[in-house]
């Protein structure tokens, strides 16, 4: 088999497409760890996690971002719902008015650190679920 230019082009195209498919399949099947808020630590930064907690603080800012703080009675963590996500939630009938203090919500997202505070950043509407009181 000769390593001609055309052969290398086809081979690299096949490898790149195969790689992307495998990466995609791996990502959608990688379930985030279900974890208690009090067990979340800063060395988990960058990992996708899932947790539930009660809303103990909520602030809506002028740009349409809704900043929540949820707690499991032992620890608390920030959950920023940015305006683009709020826009998508609105399309399925969920607005900022639906998030009340003491509501129990489940959140999935990447753990990030912002100004020394841990936060879970959900990215799509299905990452946030209001479970009730």
């Amino acid at each position, binding site marked *: 088999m000769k390593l001609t230019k055309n052969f290398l082009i086809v081979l690299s195209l096949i490898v790149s497409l195969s790689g992307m498919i495998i*990466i995609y399949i791996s990502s959608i099947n990688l379930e985030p760890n279900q974890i208690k808020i009090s067990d979340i630590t800063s060395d988990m930064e960058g990992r996708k996690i899932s947790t539930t907690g009660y809303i103990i603080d909520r602030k809506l800012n002028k740009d349409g971002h809704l900043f929540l703080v949820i707690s499991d009675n032992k620890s608390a963590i920030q959950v920023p719902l940015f305006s683009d996500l709020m826009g998508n939630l609105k399309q399925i009938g969920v607005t900022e008015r639906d998030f009340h203090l003491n509501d129990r919500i489940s959140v999935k997202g990447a753990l990030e650190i912002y100004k020394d505070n841990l936060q879970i950043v959900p990215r799509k509407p299905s990452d946030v679920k209001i479970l009730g009181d």
Partner: protein
Amino acid sequence: MLLEIFIFSLVGTALGIILGLLPGLHLNNVLPILISLSFLIQNPYYLVVLIVATVIAQVFTSFIPSIFLGAPDGDSNSNSLSILPGHRLLLEGRGYEAIKLTVIGGLGAVMVSTIVILLFGNYFTVIHNVTRPYISYAIITVVLFMIFSEKQINKILLTGGIILLSGIFGVVTLNSSLVQQQNILFPVFTGLFAISTLLVSITEKSNMPEQKTDSKLGISKSDIVKAIGLSVVAGILVGLLPAIGVSQAATFMQYLGGMGQSRPFLVTLSGINTANEVVSLNSLYLISNPRSGASVAIERILPQLSMYDMLLFTGVILFTTGLIVPITLYLGKTVPRFLVKVNYNLLSYLILGFLVLMIGIMTGGYGLLIGITATSIGVLCAHLGVKRSSCMGVLIVPSVLFFLGLNPLIFTILNI
């Protein structure tokens, strides 16, 4: 205190040289260690001075491995694009000239951006707020420019194809959570630019010719001034605005400013890199928002900053620049004298192995998968004869989707 500030600046410079010369490493990798050692240093300003000096020294010296070895540093978004034009000059025997061009770009950018910050720093918040809503339009315009600046229809289609392919790769990979976010760009950029260049070089059996160390520069003074001017503007925007990295800004300047040839591009890239670091270090005071790993670390050490703190940073930046310029030029002459005696193909294999090992250690098996995929896109781009900067679609496409507010929709469709 004055003596200690100079001592910590020298220590930071030495640390920056080491980090800059070692491929795959960056200050961001050692910042947690430095911060954990802060209890040993009485005055927090000394640690801040060390960090500032390290950042500046590393910016200059990191071009040495990227040009001579084809290996980027750990913050691959900053100098990966230098690999190809630098490699081109290296194979012409003009590797020292490539280093000199990056030094000129960096030095010019430090001087000009320092003056701009001192004179106009108070207006940066306005610039930040005014430009942010229009970023997506600027990026889309440049992408269209990248595609349609090609003259032949097949090149237009191929360029668009590579941007699309790398863009899809970027959307899937950067949002995958397979690898920690702070490390994801390393396998992506190392694969797209470094490993693919090394593989092509190995298969073409490139030999590093004797390197000339004369003072000739194949670029006019007016082109240098233009490159520095554009790089300072781009570096300031990169330093202020989120989601726009050095490589993307360099790509924009390459097309919008006509800085596509190897020499002006190296001056521009280095200038953007340096101006970005200068602005990022001062961003805490200028826009109350840290814009780099180093400025986040500084914010933890010194939460409240005054104008005099900014002046201290500026002084350390200028002092370190004054030291690192002659050191980098000296290393730029010394390193190739050693490399010419080495079998370059063997060296390329060793660097390749080292980069693969670093990807494996830093990002694990998934990182290697990402690296292989990225490498294949880079190799495909090289063999199709498409400009390597088209691979910047890996960041440009996700940036456009982010600024257009389409991310939640894309994540829902892809279920990632």
